[in-house]
């Protein structure tokens, strides 16, 4: 639960790499890195549930996609919207949705939790894909990136790809730092208690359903933040963003990277993304190799990629 020196060093190296990347990466790879940072943030948010609270959600894309839809709906056709207003609206929407879905879902556990989160996400998916007002199955455009202005003064320009890159990086860092802080705080300690042994935690006097709900809302809101960034990035949202495929992919990323660590999902996002990208370049049968890779990983590397790192320096944090 506390960082030992080796991970701290690794974190700094990773941060330096990401910060320096736009200067050496080339336009496409910079854009890819951006996409993967957003995926990493999305995966981090799910890891709060899967890895730290012991709740496996199979509907997490609902919050990711919903935030994008809110951005698309509030962005006027002909002018940009304020970044602050957009952020507030998108995060509030995902938080509210997470509160409602979570309120129902945290009463169940295990596989039933998986299925009930799936059920709610599917309902939202169908609602959006069947409502012409929300663009139907074709989705919606976000015509303008939000403007980060204070009064008339433009703070920074998200249309500038470099600025946007660092904006995403900063958001990812902020999310990472927020989760680190929360997990070290009493709240996070209770969550981990719930994951390891919910019955015992309840017996110690913590009303665990309430903690699970709050965790669900935080995770949903962070997923919304990632979805907001994705919508700003691509300028396009579709019901596909809420589909169970996307929920499945982000769950895979978390498991692949190593749940229960914060660096795991980030590594998972980059591994998954680069592997997918690389395999698509190399072979027509990339899906086959992706599948073989995943199967091999489960068999030979339990605990995901983070398991490798944890195994290397003995006596890590957990």
């Amino acid at each position, binding site marked *: 639960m506390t960082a030992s020196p080796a991970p701290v060093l690794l974190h700094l190296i990773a941060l330096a790499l990401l910060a320096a990347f736009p200067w050496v*990466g080339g336009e496409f790879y910079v854009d890819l890195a951006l996409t993967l940072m957003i995926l990493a943030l999305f995966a981090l948010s799910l890891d709060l549930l899967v890895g730290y609270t012991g709740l496996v959600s199979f509907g997490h894309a609902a919050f990711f996609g919903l935030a994008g839809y809110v951005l698309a709906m509030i962005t006027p056709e002909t002018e940009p919207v304020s970044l602050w207003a957009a952020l507030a609206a998108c995060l509030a929407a995902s938080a509210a949705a997470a509160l409602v879905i979570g309120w129902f879902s945290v009463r169940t556990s295990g596989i039933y939790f998986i299925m009930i989160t799936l059920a709610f996400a599917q309902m939202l998916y169908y609602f959006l894909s069947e409502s012409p007002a929300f663009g*139907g199955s*074709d989705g919606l455009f976000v015509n303008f990136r939000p403007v980060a202005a204070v009064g008339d003064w433009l703070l920074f320009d998200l249309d500038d790809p470099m600025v946007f890159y660092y904006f995403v990086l900063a958001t990812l860092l902020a999310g990472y730092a927020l989760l680190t802080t929360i997990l070290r705080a009493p709240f996070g300690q209770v969550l981990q208690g719930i994951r390891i042994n919910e019955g015992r935690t309840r017996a110690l006097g913590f009303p665990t359903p309430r903690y699970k709900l709050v965790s669900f809302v935080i995770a949903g809101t962070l997923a919304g933040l990632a979805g907001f960034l994705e919508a700003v990035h*691509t300028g396009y949202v579709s019901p*596909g963003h809420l589909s169970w495929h996307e929920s499945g992919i982000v769950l895979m990323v978390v498991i692949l990277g190593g749940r229960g660590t914060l660096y795991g999902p980030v590594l998972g996002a980059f591994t998954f993304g680069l592997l997918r*990208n690389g395999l698509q370049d190399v072979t027509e049968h990339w899906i086959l190799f992706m599948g073989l890779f995943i199967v091999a990983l489960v068999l030979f590397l339990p605990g995901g990629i983070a398991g490798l790192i944890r195994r290397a320096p003995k006596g890590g944090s957990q």
Partner: protein
Amino acid sequence: MTDTTRARPSRRRFLAGAAATGAIASTGFVPTRFAIGGQAPVKVGILLPYSGTYASLGEAITNGMKMRIEQAGGTLGGRPVEYIAIDSEASPPQAPRHTKKLVIKDQVDFLVGPVHSGVALAMAQVVAGRDKPIMIIPNAGANALTRGQCARNIFRASFSNWQTCYPCGQVMADDGHKTVVTMTWKYAAGNEIMAAGTELFKEFGGAVIKDIRVPFPDVEFQAHLSEIAALKPDAVLAFFSGGGAIKFVKDYAAAGLKDSIPLYGPGFLTEGLTEGQGAAAEGIKTTLHYARTLDTPVNRMFLEAYKKAYNKEADVFAVQGFDTGSLLLQAIDATEGDTGADASPAMIEALSAAEVPDSPRGPWRMSEAHNPIMDIYLRQVEGGVNKILGVASRDLEDPATGCKLDT
């Protein structure tokens, strides 16, 4: 769809900014025939589904396009062709990443794709307003692509959803039907096609007594077939595609409805699927811009060549791929092989005025909104093939409502 062309400057500013960011490694260097002695390949990026439900469409389009270019000597403007294909997975969320890979990393000269309308819109968001590449849509029919979302460098070689079924209304009215039930999947293409198909029908005084919408991509139709049986309309106008179309047509016939309530629809309902549908498809009338049975020398040669090259029957998607190839040839011929950024306006101009006389579907030309103006045929399944009864609508042009191209 709304008009978003005025919104484009913002996007373009971003993209221009991207190119201008000095630190970004790519130099923007574009090899042209003049630069490297005519040997630098023309890069054709392909973003089509090669996995999942739509994989066969992706393959047919690719085959058709490559065949057309092979027939023209295997070169574009005298330069060899490098195809860079990516599996779109028919997934809109993945589309921006895939598109950027082709556009930014591979610096393709032309971008061909996709099948899925959602993917097309996501691609358009990346491509629109750029000088390069020129995007040619070989299938996706979303009306918006050549209406509100139309763009200078985006062309469609296939159809708008509206076109495929607009003549249906007249056909049904001509057959003497007064009432119709529409039935399709509850998604954008279904809604657009049904709206087009009933437009004329209503003008002729027909009534739509129910719009049945099946959750996409569900193929459980039984409850709705019972509804239709109870409603007893004069006709049913339906649109499904692929496996869903096979199943729908079979279920419709098996429910005993085929003989009492005739079935109409856009040609996708039966095109290339009659083998799987068998006798259930007999008698269904559809409208489409193509039919395998089209008896023209061009089409006969096309079918024969395709069969020879790929050991498979060509379908409408192969035709759309073939015509995409024709457009690529015309574009590059206009600049004599130059694909540099400066050459773009000339290519766009050529494509905007393109006429495709040697299409298997019959001659067609490009509209101002970059969508084919073409004949729509009335077809009926007879003896397991879509037989052409005649032209349902000659030189049909999509209304292109809301398309404003800054030329």
